[in-house]
């Protein structure tokens, strides 16, 4: 007979109508599926009792697809058809992948997202991820004894629109109903029950094999809000292995290594690192294929010394995230540890020292994200009474649009919580303008060309009006899954146009990091570029206005005065070609000063003209 789980009071399901829901941590290296059984979140194991499913998919020529451990074991034998880390390619174009040359795959550049040529044909990262999700779905359905009503799938907090959409598409291909995409740090916080904890700010320190992410969350009135995220997409446990590997090479003084020996020593390095999480020293021995031998002891102190730099590297983004959130370490009420690398005592110590408190480590750091996702899935599937969680996530990079002069106007700033909608009014630039092009951008830079273009659309049918008279309201709306739609509406006529942004391809972790870094390092350049553009627009406007005034009222000036104004225009015009916005500003000021008297006379004359023939009472 069917096996039952204990339900919340009054929440028993009718027979055959159990609302089976799971949480899935779709990871770069490993994936997990978890569910809530009798009120308790548990990770679901496979037949062999393993909870981690390697995120590896292998395609055979006959159409057979291996997923997980089987595929992983073929990685060295069949590298072209064995896809590892497909998550890195989700929603990305070929141009986005920096290390294309070092990857064994046969990439196909396709519009939108890259694809990979395998023995079974061309596959997109979405299809590859779908294979992983399908394997997890089958595992869950076997373990729960029925069909799933849906799943909560976690994504990195910095995943952009394209990457989130690609994740949703993969779930759909796998036959999973996505209840919600949930940010990984938020899931970790939920797993620790912080949603029921005291209000305040929490930090999620996620240190995996190859990436580091720090997120600052705020819990207020039962609502989670991601205040800031930062990270290093090229820093992980593997770097610690590398340090130990170097230490082994120093100890062993080996001749140049063969690939097999190098792999052996790297494994020894990892084993040593892992042993040091529980022991204060570890003996490292190895016999190479050349007959060379080593036997040395690595102490935890020595290990800590040689990896101190790496540990410190995680604290840089941590500081930045706190700064983005406008907080200091003392404001943080609790710290959640996620990812296998947080098992290292030196990491725990560094985090404890940094935040001046003991971080939360009692849940398995590899499982914590999946457990939190399962808890959220249970709520969304309707298995909890009275719980009314609204989880807020954050926009990783500012969203905005391009304005005249190629500048970026931010409509929704970075780290705004979602769902959100913001509107801003724009107007027409030319007399009789009947259409407006809306160019949607994502990024922190001041110039549109430095930001990522997400979409373009046109609002047509604006009634002809003088420049500046039309009122066009542009609304940016980001839904709970982080997907953007933009609409533009001319207020007087109600003409409307909109676009659901499914960007052609998106930004990945490293891109975001780079773009943010660019924003910081180029902040000064950007400021200059913006100042220069603004001054150019201003100078051009002033020159045009002065010329028009001279043409109309040149008679108000004597020859010398006219020459002075014209000299001012000429010198400002020569400055227009330069790139010094300070000089340009001085030029504008000089021309303004040179024309003050002229402007005064024009004003007086106009007032006299206007007053002529009027009776005094009209001015009362």
């Amino acid at each position, binding site marked *: 007979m069917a096996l039952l789980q*204990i339900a919340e009071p009054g929440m028993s399901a009718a027979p055959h109508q159990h609302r089976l829901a799971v949480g899935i941590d779709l990871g770069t290296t490993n994936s997990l599926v978890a569910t809530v059984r*009798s009120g308790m979140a548990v990770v679901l194991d496979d037949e062999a009792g393993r909870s981690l499913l390697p995120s590896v998919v292998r395609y055979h020529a006959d159409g057979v697809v291996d997923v997980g451990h089987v595929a992983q074991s073929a990685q060295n034998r069949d590298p072209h058809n064995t896809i590892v880390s497909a998550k890195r390619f989700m929603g990305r174009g070929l141009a986005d992948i920096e290390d294309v040359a070092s990857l064994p795959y046969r990439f196909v550049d396709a519009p939108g997202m890259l694809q990979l040529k395998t023995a079974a044909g061309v596959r997109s990262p979405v299809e590859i991820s779908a294979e992983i999700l399908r394997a997890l779905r089958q595992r869950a359905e076997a373990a729960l*004894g029925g069909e799933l009503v849906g799943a909560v799938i976690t994504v990195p907090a910095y995943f952009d629109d394209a990457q989130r959409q690609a994740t949703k598409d993969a779930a759909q291909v796998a036959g999973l109903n996505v209840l919600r995409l949930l940010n990984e740090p938020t899931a970790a916080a939920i797993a620790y029950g912080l949603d029921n904890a005291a209000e305040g700010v929490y930090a999620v320190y996620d240190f995996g094999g190859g990436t580091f992410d720090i997120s600052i969350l705020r819990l207020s009135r039962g609502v989670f809000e991601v205040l800031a995220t930062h990270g290093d997409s090229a820093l992980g446990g593997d770097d610690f292995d590398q340090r130990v590997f170097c230490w082994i090479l120093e100890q062993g003084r080996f001749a140049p290594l063969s690939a097999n020996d190098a792999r052996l020593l790297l494994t020894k390095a990892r084993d040593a690192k892992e042993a040091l999480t529980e022991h204060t020293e570890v003996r490292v021995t190895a016999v190479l294929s050349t007959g060379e031998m080593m036997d040395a002891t690595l102490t935890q102190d020595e290990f800590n010394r040689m990896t101190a730099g790496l540990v410190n590297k995680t604290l840089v983004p941590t500081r930045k995230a706190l700064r983005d959130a406008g907080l200091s370490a003392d404001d943080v009420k609790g710290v959640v540890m996620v990812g296998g690398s947080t098992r290292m005592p030196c990491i725990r110590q560094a985090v404890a020292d940094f935040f001046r408190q003991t971080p939360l480590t009692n849940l398995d750091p590899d499982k914590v994200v999946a457990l939190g996702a399962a808890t959220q899935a249970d709520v969304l599937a309707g298995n909890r009474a009275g719980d009314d969680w609204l989880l807020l996530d954050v926009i990783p990079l500012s969203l905005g649009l391009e304005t005249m002069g190629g500048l970026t106007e931010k409509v929704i700033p970075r780290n705004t919580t979602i769902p959100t909608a913001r509107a801003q009014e724009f107007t027409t630039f030319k007399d009789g303008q009947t259409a407006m092009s809306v160019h949607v951008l994502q990024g922190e830079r001041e110039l549109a060309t430095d930001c990522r273009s997400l979409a373009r659309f046109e609002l047509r049918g604006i009634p002809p009006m003088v420049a500046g008279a039309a009122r066009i309201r542009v609304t940016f709306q980001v839904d709970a899954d982080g997907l953007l739609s933009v609409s533009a509406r001319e207020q007087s006529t109600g003409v409307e146009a909109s676009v659901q942004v499914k960007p052609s391809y998106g930004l990945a972790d490293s891109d975001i990091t780079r773009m943010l870094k660019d924003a910081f390092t180029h902040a000064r350049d950007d400021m200059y570029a913006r100042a220069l553009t603004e001054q150019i627009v201003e100078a051009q406007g002033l020159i045009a206005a002065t010329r028009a005034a001279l043409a109309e009222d040149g008679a108000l000036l004597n020859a010398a005065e006219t020459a002075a104004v014209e000299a001012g225009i000429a010198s400002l015009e020569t400055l227009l070609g330069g790139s010094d916005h300070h000089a340009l500003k001085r030029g504008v000021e000089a021309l303004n000063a040179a024309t003050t008297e002229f402007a005064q006379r024009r004003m007086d004359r106009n007032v006299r003209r206007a007053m002529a023939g009027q009776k005094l009472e009209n001015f009362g």
Partner: protein
Amino acid sequence: MAVTLSERAAQHISNFITKRGKGIGIRLGVRTSGCSGMAYSLEFADETTAGDELFVSHGVNVYVDPQSLSYLDGTELDYAREGLNEGFKFNNPNVKNSCGCGESFNV
């Protein structure tokens, strides 16, 4: 009249209640629904209801309302593992036949 828990079931229930952080026991019931007429319900109990029968089995409080009890008398609740799946199982001597999956039954 009695309803009991197997030792394994009692252990799991205590564990679940501890993890949940609240609850005075579990509530077993029978509702009329499903393809064979009646169905079990199994819930955490946060409070007692007037008329509840209380059975204490291996230290766990089991609440049953009087109407349900007539269908559940003699039942032992067990915790079982079948393949990857695991959960609670009603061993109810009153059941004459049940639907294929056993989720609903009649007496």
